[in-house]
């Protein structure tokens, strides 16, 4: 079966998150309250990890939120099965805040596009940043991350899977090479 490479194990993931946290502190300095918004599902757990790393260094209030973008997807009628909708919980007023969208993998950019639309329905943040654990390339929209844990070059058939203790029993990032032409040197 397709070979799987472990890109990050638990200690490495911890170090990457710590670095992402300090970059986020730097980038959010001098703004309004910071709202850390995890995208369902694994972005929520990653935001949970980042929050305690950021909070002591931050001179600003840190708020939390979760976002389910299912209802904002642009491919809803193209997919047969309705995906399960998870909880969305955001501060009632985002005006003037710095929102940090936290997600596990950045790929086509469509999830982030949907998240931006949804956030716009909750208010007008002063700034929106994007923090992702893995950027695997392959963008279909003009979207880029502000803080990236790990960049990896992939082809469309590859699978990047992020596991978190809370849902999957371990912290890890794995890459399985798909059936597409081998190579695309990393």
């Amino acid at each position, binding site marked *: 079966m397709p070979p799987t490479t472990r890109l990050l194990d638990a200690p490495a993931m911890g170090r990457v998150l710590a670095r992402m946290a300090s970059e986020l502190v730097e980038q959010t300095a001098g703004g309004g309250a910071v709202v850390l918004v995890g995208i369902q599902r694994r972005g929520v757990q990653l935001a949970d990890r980042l929050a305690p790393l950021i909070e002591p260094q931050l001179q600003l209030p840190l708020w939390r939120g979760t976002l389910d973008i299912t209802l904002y997807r642009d491919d*809803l009628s193209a997919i047969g*099965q309705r995906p399960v909708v998870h909880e969305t919980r955001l501060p009632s007023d985002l005006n003037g805040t710095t929102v940090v969208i936290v997600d596990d993998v950045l790929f086509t950019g469509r999830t982030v596009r949907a998240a931006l639309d949804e956030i716009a329905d*909750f208010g007008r943040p002063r700034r929106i940043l994007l923090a992702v654990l893995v950027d695997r390339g392959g963008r279909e929209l003009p979207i880029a991350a502000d803080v990236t844990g790990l960049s990896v070059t992939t082809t469309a058939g590859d699978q990047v899977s992020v596991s978190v203790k809370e849902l999957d029993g371990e912290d890890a990032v794995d890459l399985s090479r798909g059936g597409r032409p081998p190579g695309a040197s990393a």
Partner: protein
Amino acid sequence: MSTAILGKDLVGLEPLSGDQIRAILDTAEPFKEVSERQIKKVPALRGKTIVNLFYEASTRTRISFEFAEKRLSADTVNVQAAGSSISKGETLVDTARNLEAMRIDMVVIRHGASGAAQFLGARIQSNVINAGDGKHEHPTQGLLDLLTLRDHFTNLAGLKVCIVGDVLHSRVARSNIWGLTKLGAQVAVCGPATLLPRDIAELGVTVFRHVAEAIQWADALNVLRLQLERMTAGFIPSLREYNRVFGVTNERLARAPKDILIMHPGPMNRGVEIDSDVADGPHSVILPQVTNGVAVRMAVLYLLAGGSPDWAAGGGDTA
């Protein structure tokens, strides 16, 4: 992989499995939050056209469906029997086919004839949702009652729910009985013999002849509206007498061994089947029922929009 949670139509709760009903209720949970937002709208059904085809009067159900549709960004049209070509004698199927020729996606139908929704669903391509057909079923009301019960009791297995009143004419009662029994609740009915279907016990429900007995037994009462407009045949001696034996009053509830949750599908006849101090009392969830109605209907619309048409025919316990 491509099996949807629901089929093409939602005709009633009888053809659904317990798992399907639970899936609808679980889907309704996140939709509750959408109605609490400042901008109460998500784009999930953008571009879908939905016709609300109402052959019978309705305020709550029609508005609730309309809110649910609009909060999912669907485009909606309301057709009422009076003032449309229905009053010129057009048949149900012709009306629906004409609507379909204008490229609609879903029909929400309320009709006085039992089976109207199923009849229509078999004849048109669009999704059909039953918003009450004769004395048959009113599935979204049943679902919102289940959701409200689940909000309070978490688990419905073993819960004792008594449906009080005019069970004979009530599609709400039938949808409740199917839904509750499929989720493992114990169901009883209570009402005058003239207003209970003759073979009601065959649905697996207990029968009480006096509301005082029901109150001793139940965790929750679902009090039905006495359908005065259908009462021309002398089903009860008088409203006062009905109230004396079957009215849910604070004096009666005070003798219950525990607090009983009070539900009513509306519209209420205050002082007939339910007293005002009960309807407005601390254990009444009549208004939360209405709130849940919008969430449940959003869930049904959302799930049906992803249904595969060939699946519905299989019915029951497929997934």
